[in-house]
Every structure is written in C-alpha cells, then in structure tokens.
C-alpha cells in the first residue's frame, strides 16, 4: 500500500528539537556555574516548551487530511557518489504519537527528577544528559530517513550509557553502563547492515537514499528474500535497543542508574524505539511473513521468559525491569503479528503506567533512603499514601484490569496475535498476562501491605516525597487510568480511534483468522485476574506459602532468581574467549612473536652475518692476497667459460 504523501513544511518540528538542544547547551556550559535553581527551572522547562511545540505540531497534523505529514528540512547531510540523505524532520501521525509521549512523559519525569536528584552534586550534569537524551529521542522519532533515525538511535544509546554510569565512582555502575552500550552496539551493527541491504536493493532501481517515503514508494524493488534479510537485520537492532532475546541482558543492569532515568529511558521511551522502528517500516516487514513471524515469536518468548524471572526478584526495580522487558515482548508480539497500531498503542499506555511505576518505586526508594529490597519493606501505604494509590493504579493498568489503559492495548495485541494465526503465541501471551498480574501484585503487597519489615532506624524518617515528585505521579496516574480510552474496542463510542488515526501510516490490521473479540478478551482478562488472586493468596492470606514453594522447587527457584544464568553463559562463550584470543593469540602470539619476531629476526640475521663476514678481515696481508687470488680464479674462470662457448 503506497500512500500519496503531501509534505507541509513546519518549523514547529524544528522547535521541538531546538528547546532540548538549548537545554543541553545551557546545562553544559552554565549549569554548574548558575547553580541548582537555574538548572531546575531550565531542565524541565525546555521539556515543557518542547511539549507545547509538540502539541502544536500534533494539532496541525490533525488539521491536515489523513496521510499527510509535516516536514522540516534542516540541511543536506551525506551526499557521496550517488548516495544522498539529508537531515530532515518529518512528522506523520505515528511520529506524532511518539513525540507526544516523549515530550509529555519526559517533561513530567524531568520535573520529578528535580525533586529526586535534589541532593546530588552533579545536578547540572544530570540534566545535561537528560535533555540530551530527549533531544536524541526526538531526533529518532522525527527523522525523515533511516540514517538520521540511526543518529537518534545511537544518541539515546549514548545517553543511556552516560546515565547508567551517572554515579561513575561505583565501578559496577560504570561497567553496567558500558555493557548497555556495547550490547546496543551489537544490535546496531545489525541495524547498519540492514540499512546497507536496503540501499543495495534500492540502488538496483537507481534509488540512492533512505528516505522513508521513498523507500515506501519503491518497496516493490524488494523480493521476499531481500526484504527478509533487511527486516531481520533491522530487527537485530531492535532486539538490542528494546531488550529482546537475545540482547536483553543489559536492561536489568541498567537499573543502577537514577530511577527517573529508568522511568524515562528504560521504560517509557528509548526501549520502545525498536517497536517504533518496525512500525515505521511496516510496509517493508509486511513483505516478509517469515520476518514477521520471527518478530512475533521473539516477542512472545521474551514476554514470557522475562515475566518468569520477575516473579522471584526481591529488588523492586529489578521486578519492574523484567516486567518492562516482558511488556516490550508484548509490543513485538503485536507488531510481529501485523497489529502495528496495537503495538504502538501499547507503547503509549506502557509509557504511562510503566513510567509511573518506576516513579513510584523511585519515590519509595527515596523514602526508604535508597533501600530497594522489597523484603525490607511492607505496610508502607500509610506512610506514602499518594505513592501507594498512584502505584496501585499503575499496577491495575499493567495487569490489564478492564477499564485501565493497559487493558485495551494488551487486549488488542493478544487479539491481533490470535487473529494473525499465531495461536500458540497468543496462548503464551495470555499465560504471561497471568504471570504479570501475579508478580505486579506481589510487588504491591510486599511493598505496601502486610506487616512492616523496615529497619527501625529507617522508620522514623519515612515520609512522602515533595510535590515536585508527587505531581508527576498524579498526572501519570490519571494518564494510566484513562489513557487507554483513546483506543476503545471497535463499536464502542469512538471505538478504534487510535488505530484509525495511525492507519495512514501503518495501515489497517488485516486478520487472518476470525475470532470473537469478546471471547479472547474474557479469557485473557480471566487469566490476569487469576494471577492477581494467586498473588493475594500468597502474600496476604498465607504469607508463608512462597517460602514453602520456593523451598519445594528449590532448583527452579534458584534458576529463576539467577535469571537462568544467561549473563554467566554469555560471559563464558563470548567475553572470555574474546579476551583470550586478543591477548594470548593475537597480541602475544601473532603480533609480538610472529610478525615482530620475523622482522627482528631478519635484523639479527644480518647483524650476525655481518659479524661473521667481518672476521674475514684478519689483518694478514697474505690472507688478503689469497682472497684476491680467489677473485682472480673466479674472473678468469668466467672468461675461460666465455672462450669455450
């Protein structure tokens, strides 16, 4: 499906980028000098301005006929040989949604950070990074071509690296930051190759650019094979950025960063970049059923896999991290089964509630003075009322309790999965929904209910967070409560508005299998509720039970607790061999010993030869004469030979 694209230049897009950029410069150069107040105004301020600009852009977008886009060309970028891309911004409905999420959620998280980071010495540096991140993320979503998207893609990776390693004095944190960046790079390698594949295919048709509309216009040049190759390579990038199997390992470790970072980058925005990218290139992925299946399968598996780990984690942020991975899995399941709108929809709702969850967790941790272990919490709801309520709402949303935002999006995804014929994946998704309910409420119960396990000395300074932190909580709580209503099911009021809004870009979902929407929804919801109930039983009714279970299924429990030993596994098969090869074989073996050895060997040989030859100069004239005569013999012999022939 080739949409006719009308582009209207709009400087609003430029503004969206401009504000965070200004923020970066300000915080970088003046932040430290002008002090916290200035920073705490500028940092979030620019984000709110960007939010306003984004809204303006979105409004303009609404006023345009469907299928049109706003564009703003900055300047031509790389033009070499026949290949050319320019730095240009382009906002269609898809990016419209994304910029709203990024600027909106981002703005509030920035605001939250003002309170959260209030006592950190590197206040300005923090906001520099945060703004830089927002900038990169916006570049990512507003890019009008794949290459520029890659700029944002790597930019966000960098910021996440910087922010994870924000408290760099702790070597572990630094390590985690690097780990995140490297793992992402591995994915990005795939991304680059994907881009190259696309160009090489297009170039056959004389098309030498990566402009999205242009790709879409010439998508006919792709065979199924080339399309599959390109899609899988790009998806490799997505697995890195969006923490899917096999490259998800960095995300849990990323939680060592400040909590707002986890909220903004590792929950709300950056990690959804992969989903966005696939949705953006839906026309390409549609060409390759195999690729789609792979995406869906990976998604479903990741969702389930991560959820299982989340069950047993004691660390509140770890739980949320794994739940993020699992939710991302849902999104990929959605886009993988062709329900792009559903996927993006879940991106949005997830941004709301997962962002909120992290903020709440942050608030809890803040109150507990940095304590993250849930086994040392409990019965906090009277100490932190706002936090409790907002977090509860978020939890309901993520557990897909009907009415809350999560319900609609997850429902759409599962429905899509089923109808596109991936029944097994649907089953997996449903199961995961149950587990989700379980571990989320486990979190709630362990944190806010039951009897307090807080160390006494921490008890007395337990307190609710400052308004700069609570306001965002409330706002996001509202969003997670009602945010889903933009995508009510078909037939209901303005039903399916979200999908319709996106359809010009991502097309409409074309079901393969017919099924009763209601039936599916009931099943899924039922399982979810079951999970919640189970959690209630385990952690409120009979708190001893988990221990027993854990003790019974000791090995399984251990495996889950240790995240299936995946890190150790990678360490064993990749990191260690890499260093061994580099150090022992290449550096010592080949470089020093073989190559340099050869070179120096030649030198040594010459020198020793020289020493030897030198001995011929004995100083005795007669020896000289003897050599002389030998020479004569030689010459005369040659001439004798000459005469004879």
């Amino acid at each position, binding site marked *: 499906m080739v949409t006719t694209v009308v582009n209207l230049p709009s400087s609003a897009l430029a503004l969206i980028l401009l504000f965070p950029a200004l923020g970066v410069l300000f915080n970088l150069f003046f932040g430290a000098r002008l002090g916290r107040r200035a920073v705490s105004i500028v940092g979030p301020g620019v984000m709110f301005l960007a939010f306003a600009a984004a809204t303006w852009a979105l409004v303009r977008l609404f006023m345009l006929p469907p299928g049109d886009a706003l564009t703003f060309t900055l300047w031509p*970028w790389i033009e070499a040989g026949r290949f050319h891309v320019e730095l240009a911004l382009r906002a269609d409905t898809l990016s419209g949604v994304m910029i709203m999420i990024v600027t909106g959620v981002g703005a509030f998280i920035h605001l939250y950070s003002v309170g959260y980071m209030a006592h950190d010495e590197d206040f300005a540096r923090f906001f520099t990074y945060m703004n830089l991140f927002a900038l990169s993320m916006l570049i990512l979503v507003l890019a009008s071509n794949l290459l520029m998207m890659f700029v944002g893609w790597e930019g966000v990776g960098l910021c996440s690296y910087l922010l994870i390693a924000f408290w760099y004095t702790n070597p572990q944190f630094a390590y985690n930051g690097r780990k995140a960046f490297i793992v992402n790079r591995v994915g990005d390698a795939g991304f680059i190759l994907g881009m190259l594949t696309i160009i090489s295919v297009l170039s056959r048709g004389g098309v030498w650019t990566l402009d999205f509309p242009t790709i879409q216009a010439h998508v006919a040049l792709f065979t199924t094979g080339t399309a599959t190759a390109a899609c899988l390579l790009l998806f490799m990038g997505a697995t890195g950025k969006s923490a899917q199997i096999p490259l998800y390992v960095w995300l849990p470790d990323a939680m060592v960063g400040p909590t707002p970072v986890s909220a903004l980058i590792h929950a709300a925005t950056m990690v959804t970049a992969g989903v966005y990218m696939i949705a953006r290139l839906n026309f390409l992925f549609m060409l390759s059923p195999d690729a789609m299946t792979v995406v869906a399968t990976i998604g479903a598996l990741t969702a389930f896999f991560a959820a299982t780990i989340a069950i047993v984690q004691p660390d509140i942020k770890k739980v949320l991290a794994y739940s993020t991975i699992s939710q991302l899995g849902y999104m990929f399941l959605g886009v993988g089964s062709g329900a792009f709108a559903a996927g993006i929809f879940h991106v949005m709702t997830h941004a709301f509630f997962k962002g909120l969850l992290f903020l709440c967790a942050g608030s809890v941790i803040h109150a507990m003075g940095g304590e993250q272990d849930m086994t040392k919490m409990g019965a906090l709801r009277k100490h932190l009322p706002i936090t409790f309520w907002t977090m509860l709402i978020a939890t309901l949303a993520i557990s897909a309790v009907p009415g809350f935002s999560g319900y609609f999006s997850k429902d759409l995804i599962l429905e899509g999965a089923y109808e596109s014929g991936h029944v097994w994946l649907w089953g997996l998704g449903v199961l995961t929904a149950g587990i989700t309910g379980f571990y989320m409420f486990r979190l709630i119960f362990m944190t806010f209910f039951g009897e307090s396990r807080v160390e006494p000395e921490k008890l007395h300074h337990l307190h609710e967070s400052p308004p700069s932190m609570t306001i965002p909580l409330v706002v996001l709580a509202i969003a997670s409560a009602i945010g889903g209503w933009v995508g009510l099911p078909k037939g209901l009021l303005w039903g399916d508005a979200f999908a319709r809004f996106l359809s010009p870009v991502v097309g409409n979902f074309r079901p393969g299998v017919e099924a009763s929407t209601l039936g599916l929804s009931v099943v899924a919801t039922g399982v979810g509720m079951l999970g919640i109930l189970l959690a209630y039983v385990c952690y409120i009714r009979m708190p001893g039970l988990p221990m027993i279970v854990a003790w019974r299924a000791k090995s399984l429990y251990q495996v889950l607790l240790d995240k299936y030993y995946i890190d150790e596994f990678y360490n064993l098969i990749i990191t260690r061999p890499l260093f061994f090869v580099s150090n022992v074989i290449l550096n010592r073996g080949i470089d020093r010993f073989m190559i340099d050895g050869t070179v120096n060997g030649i030198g040594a040989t010459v020198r020793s030869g020289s020493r030897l030859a030198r001995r011929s100069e004995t100083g005795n004239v007669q020896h000289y004469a003897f050599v002389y005569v030998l020479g004569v013999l030689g010459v005369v012999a040659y001439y004798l030979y000459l005469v004879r022939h």
Partner: protein
Amino acid sequence: MSGGLLTAIVFVPLLGGLFVLMQREDRAAWNSAFIFSLIPLALSFYLFAKFDLHSADFQFAEQYDWIPRFGISYHLGVDGISLLLVLLTTILISLSLLYSGGGDIEERPREFCFFMLVLETGLLGTLLSIDVFLFYVFWEIMLIPMYFLIGIWGHGRKVYAAIKFVLFTMTGSLLMLAAIIYLVLQARHAFGRLSFDLQLLYQVPLSETQARWLFAAFALAFAIKVPMWPLHTWLPDAHTEAPTAGSVILAGVMLKMGAYGFLRFAIPLFPTVAVEAVPLFLALAVIGIIYGALVAMVQPDLKRLVAYSSVSHLGFVMLGMFALDPQGVTGSIYQMLNHGVSTGGLFLLVGMLYMRRHTREISEFGGLWKSVPVYAAIFMVVMLSSAGLPGLNGFVGEFLILLGTFLRNWIAAAFAVSGVVLGALYLLWTYERVMFGPITKAVNETIRDLTGREIAVMIPVMALMLFMGLYPKPLIDRMEPSVEKMLAPVHIAEVRLEQKRIDRDRALAQGTAPARAPKPSALTVAAQ
C-alpha cells in the same frame, strides 16, 4: 600558473624552520614557529575557499623544468583528493606546535620546531606534487624529521623505534623508486620521451606482468606506510615512543600518505591490477580492522592502544578505497580526515595526561573524572568520534565505506561492521578504566585540569568533529569530481575484465575462440 600559491604553502614552513633555528631564546622560538605554521594554514584555507568545486583536474598548478634530461619538472597542483589532506596537515601541525609549546617539550625546542616545520614541508610537498619524482623526493624527505622527532624527543626505546620506522619505510619506498623509474622507461618506449609527469604516466601501456610487478612495488611501499596488516608492527613502536606531537602528525597525516599514494598512484596507474587485487586488499583490510581492534583492546599502554586503534581505522580506509566505488572511496578519504582529527585528538589528550603523570599505563589511572572533569568531558567527545558515533565525524566516513564495500562485496562489509562494535568496546573500556571508578592512586586526586592553552588546542579539534559529523557536504563536494575522475579508468578496467571473463566463458561453452562482439555487462552500468 597561479602566483606560486602552492609553492608558498609548501616552502613557507621550511623558511620558518630556518628562521626558528636562529632564534635566541626558547619563547621566541615557539612563538615564531607557531606563527610560521599559521601562514600555510591561512593559505590552505584560502585554497579551500578558492577551490573550483566542479573541476576534477589539478588546480593552482605550477610547473617549471627541474631536470629536463629526465623530463622531471617541479610540478605542483591540488585536486579534491589532496586539498583536504593539505588542510588537515596544516591544521594539525599548528595545533601540535601550539600544544608542544605548553610544556610538553622541554629540551631543545629550537630543533624541535625546526623539524616539525620541515616535516610540514615534506608532507605538503608529498600531497601537492604531481610529478612522480618530486613526489618521491618529498616522500623521503618527510621521513627524516620524523626520525629525529622520535629519536630525540621520544621516550623509552626511542632509537629502536626510530630506526625501525626508517628501515620499514625505506624498504618500501626504495623499491617504489625502482618501480617509478621502470615505469618511466616504459613511458619512453610508448611516447618516445622521458617524463615523470603523472598525467602522462597514467596512459602508459603495460603488459600484464609488468603492471602486476609495478603495482606490487608501489603497493608495498604504500601498504607499509598505511600500515596494512601484517606490515604494521613498526607503528605501535613508533607511536608509543614518539613525543606527543610526533604521534599526532604520524597518525594524523603521515599514515594517510600511504592511503593517498594508493589513490593517487597505485590504483589509477594500474587499474586492471587494482581491480584484480580487490579481494586480497579487502581481506587484508578486514583483518586489519578486527585484528587492530582486538589487539588494541588488550594493550596496557594508552598510546599503544591508540596506535593499534589506528591500525583498525586505517583498515576501514583501505576497505573503502578498494571498494573502488564512489561512495567507498569518498568515504575512505573522509575517513582519513576523521582519523586525522580524532586520533590526533586522542594522542594530544594522552600526551596531556602523560605530561601530568609521566606514565601511560592504564592501570595507573582511574576515577580521573573527579579530578579533571573538563579533560574527561573532552576525552569523551574525542573518544566517541573515534568510535564513530553518528552525529560526529567518524560515522560519516565509516558508513560511506561500509556502503561502498557492501555494494562491492557484502561479506567483507558484514565482517567489517564488527569493527564498529569492537571499536566501541575497547574505547569505552579504556575510558571506564581511566575516568570512572574510585580514585585508586592518591596522585590522581591532585593532578590539575587542562590549562587554557590545552583547551584552546582541543576546541578546534572538537569543533571539527561536530562540523564534519553534521555538515560534511562542503568537504565531500570538493572531493567528488576528483574521485569520479580517479575511478573512471578503474571502471573501464572492470568492464574489460568482465568482458574477458564473458568471452572466456563463451569460449569454454562452445570450445571456440573467444568472440569479439562486445556486449554490455552489469559493470558498464556501474561505470557511469
């Protein structure tokens, strides 16, 4: 004839060097040296501005007879390929002089400045000469000052490094001299007169064997200079022992001379052989990329690490060049500039650290961010540019190279991409060990942050990185025509080879003599 602009660019530094030698006290020496290095800088900017974007041939050419009996002439000219390298050279020389004056070089500053400026003359001459003989002369001249820079102001096994450097390079270049003469004699056979003029030599008809051998000789000389794996082992030593400025120029400019040699001589002179040699060189380049990165990763010495990273980066340059495709070659030239800027920057930074702590052992550092935030921040930027972060200069080159390579041979590209990952790996790991973590050594708490002078040195570097990353157009536009021109014969050669192959196949198919009928092939399309 254009009023000897190029001559001025080439020889002003030499005059400056002599002038510096006459200076009485050190300050004056430093200042005059710096000022003299600014003149060619300004001139080359003027050159850049006045350069005609649309012409592919040599501009600002000057030609005077030098040794008529050999048809040798003093013939200078600049085209899109050399222009930017000239600019890079002048910039880096000025920067390293500015830096070295800040306390890095304590003893014998006069000689130091002298050699730096002579070096500049050598480099610029090499880039600007069109007459092959003249080229060779400058090519050798630039060896000597570098030898002194390493040998006198170097550290550790400086003499070993210096001698190794000279012998490696001389071996290649003298063989090249023989090849040059041979080529010229062939030209005499063909055109009835001796001439070392490049444009004439481009047309020399050669038998296959001759071409192969000559190419081999040229390629050897240049490959040593680049350096290509496995001829690289002089580089780590030279780099490590050289004084900071020396490393900067060595990595920033001198290595490019090898690549430049390929572009200007080896490939256009023997296009057919070049095309035949593509697989070999792609392979070597890829090995260089991965090998360099892996070995760099395990180096305990900062400079050595950067040196090996150069091996990796230059691998990219060669990769793009032997893609023999506009994107690839453009990318490879661009990558030369990038590498000049970013690796030059890295060496400067390492030097600044060395100046403060007198060690380059990575294990000696850690947690530096606390004590020297500005330094750390700058280091971060430079490192990212070296790691090819999009938005900074490194990425543009790498991407174009990968693109060109991918179109030529996707497997090579696929392997090369791993270099991107590994690059990030060793750089970030280094950064982590040096900047992050707690301060383990008490000394590191007290080291002072960058001085104004040093910041002044680094600002242009970073500005370049940003500019080249975000707006490469003005640079690429200037190379484009020359690249096309340089590739034209290559494409013809490709078509011819393709044709031969087709004929052979047909001949084999019907067991008859190859048919004459020329038929268009995929490559003819590629050719325009």
